[in-house]
């Protein structure tokens, strides 16, 4: 398999390059953990005051938060470099990717690694493991399997939106504000049970901006609260599949749009 081998080769090079600045490593990981810890502390403060949010207690919210954060970390670890897509395309670094026998997207994603992503992933996984123990879930092997698939699916949902937004760069030249907005929506709305935002926002965050598929829908059915959903339960169980479909569509969109690449200077 050439694809995965090349990916590992380039990702390895990015890691080696990052280790040239060794001091950065721990500061970055700790920074990532700290940033996410602040978010969790905020929710804990809210719950401490009100006891419940939309009928969800601390255990349930922590489980949702853990799923969302793990999915986020799982996407950001390989996908972080998309944040630099503006400069890569405007300054013509993308030229270089096009004259090598490797997918340009793979080269873009492996141009560097950001080690604080490891903090996101480690923090998310730790929280998910702890919260899973206290969450009201019947942990059958099937449920564990679904949880893992759902987390991967959630990473794909977030990744697909970021990839599709990044693809616009070939025509629009500057897409970081759009991508920043997407990131804000994920981190501001992703950690709460969606139903507290009301039916309109709930509909929009499911079918227009598919945030619900990242964690809310799969977490709800895992905790056997399916009856409180505004959508059929089978759709919630299908969340991992939605992630795959969206990522495939986003990748095709990226491929199409990249034909409009204009390089820099003529």
């Amino acid at each position, binding site marked *: 398999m050439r694809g995965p081998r*090349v990916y590992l*080769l*380039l990702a390895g*090079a990015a890691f*080696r*390059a*990052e280790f*040239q600045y060794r001091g950065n490593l721990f500061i970055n990981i700790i920074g990532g953990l700290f940033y996410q810890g602040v978010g969790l502390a905020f929710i804990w403060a809210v719950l401490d005051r009100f006891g419940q949010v939309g009928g969800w207690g601390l255990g349930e919210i922590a489980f949702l938060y853990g799923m969302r954060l793990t999915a986020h970390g799982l996407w950001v670890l390989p996908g972080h470099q998309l944040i630099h897509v503006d400069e890569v395309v405007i300054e*013509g*670094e993308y*030229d*270089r990717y*096009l*004259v*090598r*026998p*490797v997918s340009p997207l793979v080269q873009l994603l492996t141009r560097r690694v950001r080690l604080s992503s490891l903090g996101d992933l480690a923090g998310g996984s730790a929280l998910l493991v702890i919260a899973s123990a206290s969450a009201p879930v019947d942990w059958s092997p099937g449920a564990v399997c679904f949880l893992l698939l759902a987390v991967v699916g959630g990473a794909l949902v977030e990744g697909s939106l970021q990839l599709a937004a990044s693809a616009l760069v070939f025509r629009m030249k500057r897409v970081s504000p759009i991508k920043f907005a997407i990131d804000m929506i994920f981190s501001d709305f992703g950690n709460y049970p969606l139903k507290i935002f009301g039916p309109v926002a709930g509909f929009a965050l499911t079918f227009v901006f598919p945030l619900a598929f990242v964690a809310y829908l799969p977490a709800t059915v895992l905790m056997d609260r399916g009856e409180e959903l505004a959508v059929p339960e089978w759709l919630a169980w299908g969340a991992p599949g939605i992630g795959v479909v969206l990522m495939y569509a986003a990748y095709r969109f990226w491929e199409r749009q990249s*034909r409009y*690449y*204009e*390089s820099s*200077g*003529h």
Partner: protein
Amino acid sequence: MPVIEVADLVKEFSRPKQQEGAFAGIRTLLTREQTVKRAVDGVNFTVQRGEMVGYLGPNGAGKSTTIKMLTGILVPTSGTVTVAGTTPWRDRSRNARRIGVVFGQRSQLWWDLPLRDSLWLISRLYDVPQARFREKQRQFSEVLDLGPFLDTPVRQLSLGQRMRGDLAAAMLYDPDILYLDEPTVGLDVIAKERIRTFVGELNRTSGTTVILTTHDLDDVEELCDRIILIDHGKVAYDGAVDELKTRYAPHRELVVQTDGLESVEGAEVVRREGGKVWLRFDPVRTPPADLVAAVLAQHRVTDLSIVEPELESVIHRIYADRG
């Protein structure tokens, strides 16, 4: 056998028309009006295997745009490009294995890793057998003298060292075609010479086809037999370097160090300085030997030389004429 075929190649860049007045930014975003700039306007040429071609033109003439279409970086608006049987932008990956590309302004190496690592990574990306890779690395280390900085991170290399590293990286997998975009820009004389020697040698021993764009016409004069001049997106001249000089600058100059030469038949005095006189003549009508004999017959000459026109001034004249 042609290795590069370019037919009716056109590249247009269109931008939304800049709107003015209130909400200019938003209206620019929404407008359907486009300003179209035609950077390459119907270019045709073919390059034979083993040729070394200088692809020249002033800034903004469409030079880099053509090279970017040849290398598969840009998709043409219309026309066709065939490089070793494939369409570069459509079959990008296959094309990439057959070409080496060196951009003088931008390194292809991994900035934070030692040069040695970059070379190894390239060898893996291009599936070079490891024994072959070691042999190549040894060979390039010798010719390009990479040894002293193989273990230095690329960001710490001097420009000359980096260029040598880039050249080695581009030739590691034995590509049929080498594209050099301003390979000697910013280099000192010795570094320039080293690069030219390497490229010339490569062409002679491996038959590598070389497409060179440069502002340093000494590169072209030393390496290329053929040049393609591009201006306003069109081919202005395509042929041998010598023929270009004959066609656009048919005159030679005879420089004589002598006393009181006023005139001589078949030549025109164009300049005097100190004891030196510059005589311009057309070598077809006045054979140089006859002219020299005529001068020597009438004057005491202490020094004498014949000056070829420089490519630079020839090209300068062509662009000036085309205005």
